[in-house]
């Protein structure tokens, strides 16, 4: 058990925004899965961390097998409290749950990771939602034990540290951090740890691609392996987005599909768009008309949703054949500008759940980078309204849609709402996600290729609304 707290926790490490993890047709590229096994206190976690530090991959998760200890029977539980249960036996783990979590993470889906409470020797009632890792490291004494889990791994590592070094570390750790007495640690080592290692852990070395003798001290072996992982990751990321999206700026859009619903171009809508496009519009007017137009777009978006039939009795005593919304709605805003539309949704609908996604364009490549995503846990069963005032290349919108899909939302349950979009952007979204509905108040096709901005549109919407122009 590698943890010093009472509960296991999965380590999600984020060093920078996450670049697209999917192809231009909207399909996820699989995450890279590293398995690290080895004896207790052999230095698995340290090797995992060394790999993470060296890879320079923005979002990495280190998943400890300890999270997947299975629930004990009452007799086993009693033995556990008497320090008399063999946690080092392969049967102590719930491999099916671990497999499911790894499979979800590998396919880019959000995964719920159980937490194990060492003070009660049982899975905790809490769990942790892990999402968005490009590299998943799965470490534990039996990380290379289950054949189905092995199949998910891109590289399998066994850390082979000398057993007396492991024992020395273990005594030090358990005495210092867990207040145990050395004799007890030795007894446990003799009874459970050593036999388990010899009988079950060590044989899984045969499943490894790489064996690292001497653990973390073996710089040469670790460096070689990191080189290997880097090479493989580069091959994977070569398939990713940007070149194709940039090409789209040159193509003339043709035939937008009917998943696009244009807000009726009434005189009021056109007059509001004129005010928003006018560079001379003062900021308070820009805010006022953005809010007013947002509300119309929200209402029109809600108008696209099917409602169930319901009849009610009116105060005159007569029946009215009406309709009723019987599905929960979640509004997901693409920050920062999407927050403007959230306000409009708040003023028409209640109660609604809200999710937030922060995507920032890379200043050089303009490629979107995911910095933050927090969605309601039950979003998979909701009708989702995704909101961003402008769709230019469509790259941010595609990332936001992909995040919703990764959290279990069916494609046809997503409506993307926007005040202004380019036909190129709409086309990119429609090509990748043919069932997502789009509601747009203005189509504007004049894009500048160099700066990737809509030439005739609002300028930078967020800057004008929030007053952060340079």
């Amino acid at each position, binding site marked *: 058990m590698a943890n010093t707290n009472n509960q296991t926790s999965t380590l999600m490490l984020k060093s920078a925004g996450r670049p697209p993890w999917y192809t231009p047709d909207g399909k996820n590229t699989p995450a890279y899965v590293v398995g690290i096994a080895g004896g207790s206190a052999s230095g698995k976690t340290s090797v995992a961390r060394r790999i993470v530090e060296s890879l320079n991959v923005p979002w990495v998760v280190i998943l400890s097998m300890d999270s997947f200890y299975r629930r004990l029977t009452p007799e086993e539980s009693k033995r556990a409290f008497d320090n008399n249960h063999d946690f080092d036996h392969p049967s102590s783990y719930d491999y099916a749950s671990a497999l499911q979590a790894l499979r979800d993470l590998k396919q880019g889906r959000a995964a719920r990771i159980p937490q194990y409470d060492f003070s009660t020797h049982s899975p905790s009632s809490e769990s942790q939602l892990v999402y968005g890792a490009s590299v998943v490291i799965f470490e534990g004494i039996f990380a290379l034990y289950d054949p189905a889990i092995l199949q998910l791994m891109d590289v399998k590592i066994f850390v082979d540290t000398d057993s007396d070094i492991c024992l020395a570390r273990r005594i030090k750790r358990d005495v210092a951090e867990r207040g145990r007495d050395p004799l007890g640690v030795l007894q446990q080592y003799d009874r459970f740890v050593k036999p388990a290692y010899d009988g079950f852990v060590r044989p899984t070395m045969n499943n490894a691609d790489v064996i690292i003798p001497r653990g973390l001290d073996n710089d040469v072996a670790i460096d070689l392996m990191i080189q290997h992982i880097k090479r493989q990751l580069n091959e994977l990321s070569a398939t990713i987005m940007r070149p194709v999206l940039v090409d789209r700026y040159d193509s003339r859009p043709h035939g937008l599909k009917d998943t696009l619903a244009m807000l009726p171009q009434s005189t009021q809508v056109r007059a509001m768009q004129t005010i928003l496009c006018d560079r001379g519009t003062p900021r308070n007017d820009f805010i006022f008309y953005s809010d007013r137009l947002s509300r119309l777009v929200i209402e029109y978006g809600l108008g696209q949703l099917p409602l169930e039939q319901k009849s009610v009795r009116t105060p005159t005593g007569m*029946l009215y054949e009406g309709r009723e919304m019987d599905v929960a709605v979640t509004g997901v805003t693409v920050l920062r500008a999407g927050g403007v539309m959230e306000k409009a949704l708040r003023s028409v609908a209640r109660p609604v759940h809200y999710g937030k996604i922060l995507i920032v364009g890379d200043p050089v490549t303009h490629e979107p980078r995911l910095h933050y995503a927090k969605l309601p846990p039950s979003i998979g069963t909701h009708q989702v309204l995704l909101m961003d005032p402008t769709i230019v290349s469509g790259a941010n919108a595609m990332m936001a849609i992909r995040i919703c899909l990764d959290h279990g939302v069916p494609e046809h349950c997503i409506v993307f709402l926007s005040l202004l979009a380019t036909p190129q952007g709409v086309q990119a979204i429609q090509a990748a996600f043919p069932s997502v509905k789009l509601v747009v108040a203005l189509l504007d096709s004049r894009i500048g290729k160099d700066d990737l901005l809509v030439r005739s549109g609002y300028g930078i919407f967020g800057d004008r609304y929030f007053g952060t122009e340079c």
Partner: protein
Amino acid sequence: MQATKHPRLHQLAQTHQLKGLMTIIRDQNTERGEFVFYSDRVIRLLVEEGLNYLPVVDKEVITPMGVPFQGVAFEGRICGVSIMRAGESMEQGLRDVCTSVRIGKVLIQRDERTAQPKLYYSKLPKDIADRWVLLLDPMLATGGSAMKCIEVLLEAGVKEERILFVNLICSPEGALAMLQQFPKLQIITAEIDEGMDERKFILPGLGDFGDRYFGTED
């Protein structure tokens, strides 16, 4: 002519969502907070739709990127006139989209001796003759009060074709009578109902809008 087909009677887009809103406000079991919230939401849609009948002129603007954009600009000044008391519920919806809009008020009640609507009070913007008027009253039953109010507006010099009568629910006979009486009037409504009962309540309707909105039911 069928009321739903009349070229000067404009209904909001009949979406499931609108039906959902109307279901809530028509339901006799809806509590007042909900009634007010969802009425306000429909009113906002009605006001937005009503404003579309105002004129605009072509206007070219320069975008922040320095290129021209061919758009339009609002033209013509407006004001609201609410028929007290229920019409006052619609004033905020108008103010929310037209900040600091001028609003006139008219009180019309039934004269018990003649059974005819009678004007008790009116206070209108003094330049109303130059303005477009959004006439606000949530329920169009017989149209008696609204017709009386339009007479008051015409006397004040408002041009008939500049009057837009905005309401949530109308009876077909009331709407048709008004459109016949005033051949240039436009009506904007959310739903057209089946008819009226002997007390001149719209059926199926929603009961007394003013009482439900302001909380003065028995």
